[in-house]
């Protein structure tokens, strides 16, 4: 009995090793290229009382993506996908900033309430997606396409400002209070950027919940075979639904951080192309796009790798508009490598030659 257990354990460990190989290798590759190009890449210094350096910048900038990748991992693990995360981020940011108002002296709504409202909006969006996918059995792609398209429109309508006695939608609203900038910037006397703490906390909480409770196992079961899950008594519908709600929650967190970084809500640009980055992070993390087994650690490393890649490409003079080309190619390459068909085809070829 103990023999079989240890066998399972060692096999499992080998599998984890294999899964994390791809994201770690990719991160290593990106870092090596960067070190060759800029020898000062790993230098960290303290300037103006805060940490400063390439690495710090990458980790700081990757916070939103790490948070998003956690939610996306859960959704993909249940066998779905959520392409509305960018739009939900923009929507949550718009709600948060609209509630805070742009007065110089005080917030229109207490900051905690505004942030909670933003998170609630994210969860509502997630619940909407989840309802369509889990209860009504609509393809995740199409169900989340609704918010992908409509989300930014609603965000534009929320981003209204009074101009000449009339509320005009589609404005960029600025928050002028200093304390709001702390979320995306630095807290007083802390040398590490705040988003890093938030991202670490989110990853830790999700990790504990997924490993210490049965939720992680349930999600894997639903992703591998939701029918079998139902037969052994798992409420597959609810698990799927929960995945989307949590994904919406992480999207709204990312949205609040992004809006704090720029002290404003920009419905057109917050979370733009983030859905591709998040999916890419999950794919790069060695997670199967068809659902089932997942690894949070893989997705987190994947997210940091993507941000490192983005920063390096910017440094090479690629503009933000052109960036998706490279990322799309990377996505296709990764999912092709994972493809069972390709492996079979290659092994068949090899067999013929030998």
């Amino acid at each position, binding site marked *: 009995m103990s023999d079989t257990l240890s066998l399972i354990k060692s096999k499992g460990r080998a599998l984890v090793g294999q899964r994390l190989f791809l994201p770690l290798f990719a991160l290593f590759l990106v870092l090596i290229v960067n070190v060759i190009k800029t020898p000062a890449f790993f230098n960290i210094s303290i300037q103006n009382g805060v940490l400063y350096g390439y690495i710090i910048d990458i980790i700081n900038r990757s916070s939103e993506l790490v948070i998003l990748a956690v939610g996306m991992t859960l959704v993909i693990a249940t066998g779905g996908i959520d392409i509305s995360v960018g739009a939900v981020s923009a929507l949550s940011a718009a709600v948060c900033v609209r509630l805070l108002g742009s007065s110089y002296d005080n917030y229109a709504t207490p900051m905690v309430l505004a942030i909670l409202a933003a998170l609630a909006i994210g969860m509502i969006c997630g619940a909407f997606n989840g309802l369509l996918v889990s209860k009504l059995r609509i393809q995740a792609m199409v169900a989340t396409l609704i918010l992908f398209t409509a989300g930014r429109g609603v965000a534009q309508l929320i981003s209204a400002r009074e101009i000449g006695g009339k509320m005009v939608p589609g404005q960029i609203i600025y928050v002028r209070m200093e304390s709001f900038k702390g979320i995306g910037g630095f807290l007083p006397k802390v040398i590490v950027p705040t988003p890093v703490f938030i991202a670490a906390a989110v990853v830790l909480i999700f990790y504990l919940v997924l490993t210490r409770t049965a939720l992680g196992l349930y999600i894997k079961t639903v992703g591998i075979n939701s029918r079998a899950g139902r037969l052994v008594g798992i409420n597959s519908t609810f698990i799927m639904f929960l995945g989307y709600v949590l994904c919406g929650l992480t999207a709204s967190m990312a949205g609040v951080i992004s809006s704090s970084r720029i002290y404003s809500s920009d419905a057109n640009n917050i979370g733009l192309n983030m859905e591709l980055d998040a999916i890419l992070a999950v794919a790069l993390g060695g997670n199967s796009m068809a659902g089932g087994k997942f690894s949070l650690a893989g997705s987190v490393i994947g997210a940091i790798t993507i941000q490192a890649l983005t920063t390096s490409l910017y440094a090479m003079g690629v503009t933000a508009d052109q960036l998706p080309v490279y990322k*799309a190619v990377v996505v*296709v390459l990764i999912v092709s490598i994972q*493809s069972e068909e390709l492996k079979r085809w290659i092994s068949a070829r090899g067999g013929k030659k030998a």
Partner: protein
Amino acid sequence: MNLIEQAKRKVSGSNFLLVVTIVMFAIMYLAGILIYSRQGFGNMQTFMNMLIDNAGLIIVASGMTVVIITGGIDISVGSMIGLSCMMLAYMMEIKGMKASSAVAIVLVFGIIFGSVQGWLISYLKIQPFIVTLAGMFFARGLTAMISVDQIAILSNQNFLDMANKNIYLPFGAIVNKRGIKLFPFIHPSVVIALVTLAVIWYVLKYTKFGRSVFAIGGSEQSALLMGLNVRKVKMSAYVLNGFLSALGGFVFCLNTTSGFVEQARGFEMEAIASTVIGGTLLTGGVGTVVGSFFGVLIKAIIETYIRSNGTLSSWWNKIVLSLLLCFFIVLQSVFAAIRRRRG
């Protein structure tokens, strides 16, 4: 009695969704005539303008219908339209190429793009949404690589002539205040769109390829056991869709005569919404391009409403269309649930 039975059987099931769409179109059109009569909603020209504005969408929605019937999806079409417009504008304005060769290059590019996507989906068995999502970002990024500035097509006279040529129809004339008879007109883009629609309708209904598409969408397993070359047919569907999105891009460009990075963002949503509203089931196996055509018309009516109203911002277009898509997919899933319970 027998006739009624037959009619009932015809209307039941998936056709019901098509009937809902057509009835909805009729009601919306009549309502529009009543509410916005002062803005000239009832004129034949208003209807023709809907066709002119949405000629590209008609073509793209036809291709989308084929892909969705196979049980797949393609969300790269919006970016493909933007890329086609940019390629046309760049080749004709900056490189000074002839209109015909520029269009030919764009169409060939569409076929290549569709082939790559189709190969990844059907031969490597990668999920269509991942492949076409990557395709969507790839094409959009490629557009930005060609030029980040807007390029307007101003010098290619052949292209502009084709874009602005009025084809007058021999019916539906209105007499204006000066007593001159004004016949409604369309542009060549509408002719291309309607011919494409007719061809795809014929292909789906009367060719081996069309029947295979339905068979695969109904059940890939059965289609495989029947001896159909599932991979080849699926791949062909994406190649066809790639070609049609490039053709749609060309027709779209006839309307806008310019290329810029943000062009046709969200167009994939319009194409999918039109298709779904037209009664094509997202699970595959059921659908017609005629339904998608009516789906496009419903989207066009919503746009015309919002424009005639005058006070609503254009973001409402997307929001209302999304709500409508939501309504129709919920309707579809309710029907699917009823059918499951019965059978």
